[in-house]
């Protein structure tokens, strides 16, 4: 079971993940149309690229945009959730050991205790995000059952990983569910709302180009005030 999950199934899920991202990104770019979108992507492109980079960068830094500043609680939640999620996955010692074993390379790692806190941060911030969905009328009206499901699927690997690491009850059970939920997450990312993880960059770049090339980018003094 373990060998199957970490062998063929791991391969399949990573392939679906990467190829899915590649295909969806290519389709996105291929579907952009100067006439329909009313943006000359190929004329005055340099203005567009400059604003595209700004548009992405500003939203990646906490409190740099007006949007982040006007909603400080959401901003903290958002960044804690996303940074913890990425850091605890990518820099976990155990993950990097597997990388080293299988492919002979690894990236930087963080101490297990830090990963532990990050996993807790992911779970806690996700719970607050769920409460936010239930409590705030302006979020509740937008929320569909699938939004909750997506959050549950997204935090499942962290919860199970945390339980496995601390050997609550049956270690093997938690480890296997950790691997399965992680692989499930990888597989659904390209095809669900989780595709926002990579389409964020493309959509922001597109809007940046729109503002940079067409909507005042060549006249606005210091670029768009995001």
């Amino acid at each position, binding site marked *: 079971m373990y060998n199957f999950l970490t062998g063929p199934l791991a391969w399949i899920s990573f392939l679906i993940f990467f190829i899915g991202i590649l295909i969806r990104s290519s389709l996105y770019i291929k579907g952009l*149309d100067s*006439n329909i979108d*009313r943006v000359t992507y190929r004329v005055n492109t340099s203005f567009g690229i400059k604003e595209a980079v700004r548009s992405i960068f500003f939203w990646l830094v906490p409190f740099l945009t*007006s949007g982040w500043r006007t909603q400080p609680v959401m901003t903290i939640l958002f960044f804690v959730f996303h940074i913890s999620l990425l850091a605890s996955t990518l820099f976990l010692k155990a993950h990097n050991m597997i990388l080293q074993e299988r492919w002979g390379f690894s990236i930087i790692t963080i101490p297990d205790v830090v990963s532990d806190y990050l996993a807790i941060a992911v779970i806690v911030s996700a719970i607050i995000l769920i409460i936010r969905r239930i409590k705030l009328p302006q979020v509740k009206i*937008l929320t569909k059952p699938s939004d909750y499901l997506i959050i549950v699927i997204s935090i499942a690997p962290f919860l199970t990983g945390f339980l496995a690491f601390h050997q609550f009850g049956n270690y093997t059970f938690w480890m296997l569910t950790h691997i399965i939920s992680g692989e499930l997450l990888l597989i659904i990312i390209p095809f669900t709302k989780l595709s926002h993880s990579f389409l964020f960059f493309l959509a922001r770049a597109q809007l940046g180009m729109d503002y940079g090339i067409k*909507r005042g980018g060549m006249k606005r*003094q210091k670029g768009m005030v995001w």
Partner: protein
Amino acid sequence: MTKNILCTSDPVNDKETLDVLLRDKRGQQYYDEMKRLEVDTAALQKRLKDTCKSRIRTWLEICTHCGMCADACAFYLSNDKDPKQVPSYKIQSTLGEIVKKKGNVNNAFMRNAMYVAWGQCTCCNRCTLYCPFGIDMGVLMSYLRGLLFSQGFVPWEMKIGSGMHRIFRAQMDVTVEDWVDTCEWMIEEWEDEWPDLKIPVDKKNADIMYTVNAREAKHYPDDIAEAAVLFGIAGENWTVPSEGWEETSLAMFAGDWEGARLQVKSVYDAMDRLKPKRMVVTECGHAYRATVIEGPYWAGLKSGKTPVETLHYVEWVAEALRSGRLKIDPAKKIKEPVTYHDSCNYIRNGGLSHIGREIMSYIAEDFREMTPNGDHNFCCGGGGGLNGIGRYRKERNIGQKVKRDQILATGAKLVITPCHNCWDAIRDLEETYKIGIRWSFLKPLLLDMVIVPEHMKPKEE
């Protein structure tokens, strides 16, 4: 079932149809007929297939329903944070459903979508700046309007407006003769005070081709005379075209992309005919957006730019003040507290926020900014055509509360707003809420404070 006469999916292309529509008071029969207007789902499906591409589909798909757009919307805030006014909800419950159901929607759905698209959103694009993904709900709403227009679900006034553009190449029934006559009449009207006044029509190779809003020709002709005086004082070599003089686009507000194309084409043709060095657009926001920002795309110009460089009126004013061609008499500067309302269409969508501030630095001693302002300014409540739609007047008035409070917070009693729709909206805001403010375009204010060269002054008898 009786056949619809006034409310059909066909655009208005002839004067006869237009007159029948105009006779229908407040669109009573029109809206009655709309209740039985059938949705051509096959046509809607085809339109989606042809025009709903990756940008729009992705926007609709990746919205994570975070609700961060809510507080960005003047209508959400003005309606006591009614969740139904959350921008994402407005677009997901209308366009989102149409796309999801592949066009299989019914009459009641389309009528509600019309209400949302014109009665709850002015396409001001402010929420776009507050969406982490940059989902442009103004663009989405405008796309939805296009779908609704193609099916005939469009407010009565918008249908008429689009028809006007198709027939007269103007948003009102102003013919080329009417326009040229108005220019001549204004010279006569103003010649006592301004003996040297000229409004050159169809002059070739001028430095500036000036184009206006049909309302100026029809209801506010003094605006044209004021522009002429200021061009004269600045010593500009300018002209107006006899054809292609109208900048506005109710067709754009209506979602009538063919009507919008015909309209801007008339202006670009005038550019080709008269070969001016530059064009200047009057103090109108959506007109600039339509003819300068979006128009080149409707007309299929690969450069994405107008055939000759185009300035909004505020850019011309700032340039004239900067270069000293217009000089302000320091004694006549505005002394009282004054604020400046940014028009979404040439600020957020045109990048001209700094120009307004530059002008204020020349003409006002106590300039007070609204908060927020510039690219983040709130809509006056009357954009996107909402000003002109009688059916949604109440919604418009409520939507103005945010602007009202913004103005009040500055303490200024004078609001400068170089945009026709904003000007109307702020006038109506005063009528509704009686907060004791005055409102003005730039031209009449400038006219009161510029230093007039000798040759422009009336000769002493």
